[in-house]
């Protein structure tokens, strides 16, 4: 025991003890959606025997991969106290630009520039994503512009760039490497699921046990204090924004491979889902709080809801209504399970 027990007259002891109990609840805040997932599982089981088949669950898993990578990126950025709306455009524009640079300049329906060999498509795509993140970082950190609006502008601009480059067409002849990552199965489970799980694991461990990972929480919690503690705030935030762009580009690769083409509105409207998943998963919009595991349960909740609704044959006209209702209900559950007010 700490020697403080020698000072029983300090009221601090009582406070600490009382506080102790509360922390236990709060510590499991990241698990607050687990009961929701269980309930969804039970409902799914009741409405359809097809629900609990590995086919169905792996399908849900693979459909969740692209969104979950965006959520991973957004969660990291939010924990560091920032926001990036442009992720939903990066997922489309990065593959388009990479493919445009790689595809031959004649012969196909979509003509690229043929500047680079085909194997370089994946590195190029990741590079474009990272570049987008870095430019956002420049505008936010160097020019000190409002991050929400910068990335909102970037969202529109990048979507426009994609339309301009692809001339609004879906690009069907995508590089083989994209196709492989999006379509392969390893040990009977889609490769995308393995990769995503690995990325979440690595990210989660980095946030929990690495100095730079912890620095994100410090920066998101109080950037001034983090700076005073010797953390290179701007550099780390910049790195996170760049990493976010890179992850979104990688999500774009998986998406393209998964669906076999780059469509002009790939990712369109996803940013709302990304935010919803991240926040109901317990990541704070004000920075400094939340875990990747929580964010992952957020994505799975949203995906399972869609799956169960489809299996249950909910009337199509009521689909969207229920989607919205479930976001709010999950939010309420996550608020009461964690016992914390969300400001």
């Amino acid at each position, binding site marked *: 025991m*700490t*020697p403080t027990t020698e000072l029983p007259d300090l009221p601090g002891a009582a406070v*600490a003890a009382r*506080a102790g109990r509360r922390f236990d609840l709060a510590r499991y805040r990241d698990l607050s959606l687990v009961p929701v997932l269980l309930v969804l599982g039970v409902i799914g089981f009741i409405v359809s025997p097809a629900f609990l088949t590995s086919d169905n669950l792996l399908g849900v898993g693979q459909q969740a991969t692209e969104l979950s990578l965006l959520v991973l990126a957004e969660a990291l950025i939010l924990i560091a106290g920032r926001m990036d709306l442009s992720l939903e455009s990066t997922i489309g524009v990065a593959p388009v630009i990479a493919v445009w640079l790689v595809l031959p300049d004649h012969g196909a329906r979509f003509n690229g520039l043929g500047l680079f060999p085909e194997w370089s498509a994946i590195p190029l795509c990741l590079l474009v994503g990272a570049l987008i993140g870095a430019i956002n970082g420049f505008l936010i950190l160097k020019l000190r512009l409002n991050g929400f609006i910068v990335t909102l502008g970037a969202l529109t601009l990048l979507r426009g760039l994609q339309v301009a480059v692809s001339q609004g067409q879906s690009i069907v002849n995508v590089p083989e490497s994209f196709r492989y990552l999006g379509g392969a199965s390893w040990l009977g489970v889609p490769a995308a699921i393995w990769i995503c799980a690995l990325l979440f694991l690595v990210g989660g461990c980095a946030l929990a046990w690495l*100095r730079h990972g912890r*620095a994100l929480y410090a920066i998101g919690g109080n950037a001034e*204090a983090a700076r005073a503690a010797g953390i290179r705030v701007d550099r780390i935030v910049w790195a996170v924004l760049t990493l976010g762009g890179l992850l979104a580009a990688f999500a774009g690769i998986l998406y393209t491979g998964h669906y076999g083409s780059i469509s002009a509105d790939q990712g369109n409207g996803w940013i709302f889902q990304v935010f919803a998943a991240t926040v109901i998963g317990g990541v704070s919009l004000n920075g*400094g709080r939340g875990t990747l595991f929580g964010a992952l349960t957020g994505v799975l909740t949203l995906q399972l809801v869609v799956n169960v609704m489809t299996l249950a044959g909910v009337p199509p006209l009521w689909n969207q209504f229920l989607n919205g209702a479930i976001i709010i209900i999950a939010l309420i559950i996550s608020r009461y399970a964690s016992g914390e007010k969300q400001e």
Partner: protein
Amino acid sequence: MADPSPVRGPVVEADGISKRFGATVALSDARISVAPGEAHALVGRNGAGKSTLVSILTGLQNPDTGTLRFDGEPAPARGDTDAWRSRVACVYQRSTVIPALTVAENLFLNRHRPDRQSSGALRPISWKRLRSRAGELLAEYGVDVDPTARAEDLTVEQRQFVEIARALSFGARFIILDEPTAKLDARGIGRLFEKLHELQRQGVAFLFISHHLQEVYELCSTVTVYRDARHIVTAPVADLDQQALVEAMTGETSRGTEPSWSVTGRALPEGPPLLDVTGLSLAGHYHDIDLTARPGEVVGLAGAAASGNVQLGETLAGLHRPQAGTVSVAGRPVRTGKVPAALAAGIGFVPEDRHVQGLVPQRSVAENATLTVTDQLGPFGTVLPSRTRAFARRMIDDLDIKTPGPATPVAALSGGNQQKVVIARALATRPHVLVAIRPTNGVDIKSKESLLGAVRQVADDGRTALIVSDELDDLRVCDRVLAMFHGRVVAEFDAGWSDEHLVAAMEGMTGPTHPKENHDSHH
């Protein structure tokens, strides 16, 4: 002495430092030099530039001009945080604790591995070791905090100790403390000073900033005075008595140490009580409090941290809803738990922390000062700018607020002047009962006098004031002081109390002078 080399230069030497923020000159050709092992005090009025100097000395900000040397070597580059950290550690004036993180992590933020600070970005942190080291560190300060508790759940004082423990644990040979005692109670200050004396014996040098001059005399050997962004004087403390020090700070010949007000020799106020509190209880904070105050009376509510006195003050202002008890002003009961009701009943309020509850930082001085009286500034719910300005000008004059004008955002003022705006806001309603929690928090000695004078004036105008504080200086204006401990009033003192008795009462050791019968006589 731990230091083997006898011919080392000063641990820090800054010369010709200038810094401006936009149009505000925060430092102008200022200098300071701290010798190894020296305890050096830096004093000056609010806004003199002390904290700005601190941020320059710790590498948070670059000076516009000037040179800075540590141990005779030029200061590290701005980005090289590790180099800065090895030369100087600091307890900043603004809290640098990160609320969402645990105490242990806050203590070892960004140096989770003690052995090798910067390398090993890929080596995982051992939380177990971190926690046990945090426990040991906290134990050294006698702070009873669970290292796994989150910082946001600590009391202000506990947080301050986390802050102090962190700075002192760097092992730096030079430590800056910017008003470390402002958030501590007497016992806490005692523990801090013990620790500082111990480090001093080990040859650590300090730069100590405080508005409590007696602390300067107690701890430091040399003192530097800044005034209006400039260096005024550096001298051994023994050569400057308190009066000379105040003169150097204010640039005026002091009218003597006697304040403009005095509580001795007043007639005991007569008449029915203006404020009457009976049986007030708030779970976890205070129980069954009875309290009265008559017109013309200033009542002190003394108590250390967690004594419940602050919550009692806040309850009177309507911020908490008590479980039991009644409050009445001038014989009329006040609805509890509602600030507007308290305001309407004539209770004015100076909150504990001006940053949290006191000010809207981006808005103007005028707007902040009139926030409580917007209903009086024009007909039909309008707020006329002319009247707002005039009202604010009057407040600026009355309280001697140093500001470019009423339209200046309040965030651009120095701490002391911000505090004056908070007091202005409370006085704006011309309250029957002024509840002031630590009204002179972080305020320089000169302003302190005038703020307390303003509080005293409320009473002298036939109304009443309640000062909730643990600072003896604040309590000296009171006609009567109630000491609280663990949520109960344990003693009551009339003017002329002795410091030891009051401090003892605040610490729960009720002395023999317990004037219980006085207390009873009110019923």
